[in-house]
């Protein structure tokens, strides 16, 4: 994307005459006061150019628009050509509902954005199953680890991992997915070279991993949070980054819940890895439930505030996610359900389909994780053995380790550092846990 954006002059460099419809769509989305719902209403029975002209001439009679009357004046001040040029320069694609290039899975949604801005190629959304991995920004190491693993395993299994590119769980899931996608691409490249040399031998490289797709609240060309600028770029290169916000809008707070509805609308399954009892993840869950999208949650310690929300979701009947195969079964059920619904001519059926059916439907199963190799704790020398026993799988404070072992602090710290060097425990910020 960025390489094409930097090409000095796109074919329509001088004098866009006439401006394409996309330019008017982008301009309409840029008018302050026009939100997703107004935009949809404006474009319901007009072309973008028609809507724009109606807007600037003041001939629109929209109930929703009356509250946003000042927007009329704002709109007259906007320069459609400048907006269009800015989008072209930034390499941002403008996709309109009901036209080619708009993700078909999203088009069916009743709250689908009328205009979608994109980096990269969102067509992958229509080719593969999609799973959203969402969660809190203030995640624990456990949550980050699970999110990255799920992201990698699902991507490797050919599932598009959707997330919001936020800090915490979102970022970890995308990191995992990007890594898996890159590994698979390299493998294929090697395999293709090998097969071409072996004159037409069948490639034994595994199924191709699916690229991740990010759905963000602000403009796709302005990475937020800035720490994720690198990840943002890699996601856009591998798959796509989508948003309904044009260039140059502020990251307003209301855009985040609106973004979450797009994630829910795009997903076959939503997985919450860690979340607190309140927060954006629960918006996504709500939006998913409203659309009949199954929601899964990763269980966590009942003492961890970061798992309070997910544990509550499990208590409410969401399915349990222990690893990628749990998710893939749910995806299989969902896809099978959709197929069945299609056959039943639009009659909605929420009846779950048997697992066997899902597996038969060809949903790839991620390899079950290998059994944890038993650590020979008994073989460890004396203080180290007691210390490793005192450090739980749950995070344990150094105070607790000292309390449980009753040993002196220097002995305990020495043992912990030796265990860390061997990769048996992990310590950060005064907390220790088994790897």
């Amino acid at each position, binding site marked *: 994307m960025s390489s094409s954006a930097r090409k000095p002059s796109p074919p329509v460099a001088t004098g866009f005459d006439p401006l394409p419809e996309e330019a008017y769509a982008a301009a309409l989305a840029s008018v302050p006061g026009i939100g997703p719902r107004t935009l949809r209403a404006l474009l319901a029975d007009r072309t973008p150019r028609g809507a724009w002209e109606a807007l600037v001439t003041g001939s629109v009679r929209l109930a929703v628009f009356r509250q946003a009357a000042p927007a009329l004046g704002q709109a007259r001040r906007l320069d459609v050509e400048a907006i269009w040029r800015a989008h072209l320069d930034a390499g941002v694609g403008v996709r309109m509902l009901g036209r080619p290039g708009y993700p078909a899975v999203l088009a069916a949604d009743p709250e689908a954005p009328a205009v979608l801005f994109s980096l990269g190629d969102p067509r992958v959304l229509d080719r593969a199953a999609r799973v959203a991995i969402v969660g*809190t*920004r*203030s*995640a*624990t*190491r456990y*949550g980050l680890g699970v999110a990255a693993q799920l992201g990698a395993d699902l991507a490797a299994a050919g599932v598009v991992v959707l997330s919001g590119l936020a*800090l915490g769980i979102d970022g970890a899931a995308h990191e995992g997915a990007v890594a898996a996608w890159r590994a698979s691409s390299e493998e294929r490249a090697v395999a293709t070279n090998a097969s071409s040399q072996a004159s037409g031998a069948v490639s034994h490289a595994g199924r191709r991993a699916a690229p991740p797709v990010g759905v963000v609240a602000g403009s796709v060309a302005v990475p937020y*949070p800035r720490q994720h600028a690198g990840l943002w770029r890699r996601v856009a290169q591998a798959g796509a980054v989508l948003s309904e916000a044009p260039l140059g809008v502020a990251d307003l707070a209301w855009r985040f819940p609106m973004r979450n509805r797009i994630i829910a609308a795009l997903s076959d399954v939503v997985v919450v890895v*860690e979340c*607190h009892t309140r927060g954006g993840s629960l918006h996504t869950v709500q939006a998913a439930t409203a659309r009949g999208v199954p929601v899964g949650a990763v269980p966590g310690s009942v003492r*961890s*505030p*970061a*798992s309070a929300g997910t544990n509550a979701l499990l208590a409410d009947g969401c399915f349990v996610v222990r690893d990628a195969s749990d998710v893939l079964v749910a995806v299989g059920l969902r896809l099978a359900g959709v197929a069945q619904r299609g056959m039943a001519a639009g009659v909605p059926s929420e009846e779950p389909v048997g697992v066997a059916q899902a597996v038969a439907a060809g949903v790839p199963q991620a390899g079950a994780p290998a059994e944890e190799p038993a650590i020979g704790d008994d073989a460890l020398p004396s203080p180290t053995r007691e210390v490793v026993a005192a450090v739980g799988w749950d*995070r344990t*404070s*150094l*105070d607790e380790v*000292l*309390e449980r072992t009753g040993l002196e*602090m*220097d*002995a305990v*710290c*020495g043992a*912990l*550092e*030796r265990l860390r*060097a061997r990769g048996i425990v992990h*310590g*950060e*910020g*005064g*907390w220790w846990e088994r790897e």
Partner: protein
Amino acid sequence: MTAAVHSATLTGTTGRPVVVEVHDSEGLPGFTIVGLPDTAVRESRDRVRAALLSSAFSWPQRRVTVNLAPTAVRKAGAGLDLPIALGVLVALGDLPAAALEGIAFVGELGLDGSLRHVPGTIALAEAVRPARLVVPQCDLAEASAVRPGRTFGVPTLHALVEILRGSSAWPRAPRECRAPGTTRAPHVRGHLVADVPAPEAFVDAQAEAWLARAVERYGDLADVKGQRVGRRAVEVAAAGGHHLLLVGPPGSGKTMLARRLVGLLPPLSRPQALEVTRVHSAAGLPAPDTGIVWDPPFRSPHHGASAVSLIGGGTAAMRPGEISLATQGVLFLDEMGEFPVAVLDALRQPLEEGVVHVSRAKASADFPARFLLVGAMNPCPCGEGGVPGSCRCSPSARARYVRRLSGPLLDRFDLVVPLRRTAPDELLSGVPGEPTCSVAARVVRARAIAGARGVRCNSELRASSLPSVAALSPRATALLERSVRAGRLSGRGVDRVRRVARTIADLAGADGDGAVQEEHVAEALALRAGREVLDVAG
């Protein structure tokens, strides 16, 4: 007739000798003070007049000029009342000039002729030229600490004049100033440096009295339930003089620990005690009965403190700030994240140099600032950021909060300790922690070992001396290497960890020359794990 009386005035915490010259002549009755007097000195005219009249002397109906020499030095405070009054008496012929030969006078006069306390007496006593010194009775202990055997305390102007006239005898001049409840001045550190005894040796009768007082003032470490890491951090900070930052949620006992740290510090050596007394006296803090401040001071300014109140200054008076009042003791900044950034950054230079240079257009002064900095802060605005996954703050709010401690300031903390709230069962268990007295014994011993290295404590060890003084065992070296490689420790942090590890080894009773072991380095690393809590946000 003219008279000249020796005295001194105070700039910052330094005394400067002053000669009070009084001249009287025929002319329109009047009383003028020249020689850069401040308001308090100018007002002494009225105090001196009332005091003379109350003491049954007459006030001259003549023209009197008082000159304070040298004229270039600004004169502050009411300590010049007494020499001015005596000068007037000599000039009027009520006292023979010879009676004042070889004596200096310092004292504020009450309207009834009584002599009152003068701030900064100890510095004035050091500054005056003549051999003998007369001070108000209440300042005798303080002044005789620096002029033993040659300082006299008198209660009133009248009594003093009687003595000077030879009608009554000079009072006894105290020989030496003693610490309270002891039979000798507490040279505990000096005594131990020569001969490093076992910790039990410190716990003799004298030390017990000392510790009982410390515990009474600052509380016993045994009161802190649970918090083994926090208690250990306080011990290491006291032993090695390592600046300590406690990072924990509200209610995790940060203030409690900081106060108990002061109780762990050994009594001040004589030069240290004099330094502290000079500052406290100049700032006008109430003097202890001993006259000399033997206790390491504990100062905890509120986070509303201005830069000047912390660093020192003022227009002409040049008052020492909180950091100087905490010299040789503990400066505790609670809620460090709430202090203005400029105020915190002003601490950096004094932390590095142990002295603060305060310059104003009218005057400048150097104040000592060799304090142990103990900071306490929440990990984030909501306070719960120390526990992974519990923080409710937005990442930007968290980063903003942590950024108030600039990197260079954060680097000054050898110990950055994450604290958690004590579990209720530990709070109620009633199992007391180790008491102050046994921890203090280890602290004294560790400080004595450091003293043998030629420094006050291990935090003052030069980086160049670390290879010889804090040699690392091979496993300890490997651990440091691993930590740096993994990015858990910066290059700058390595030396700090080595100093702390040296202190921990000294506390463990290791031979002062022995190598620092892996356990000691591991513990030193654990005692700065709080940086990871702050880095998450930064």
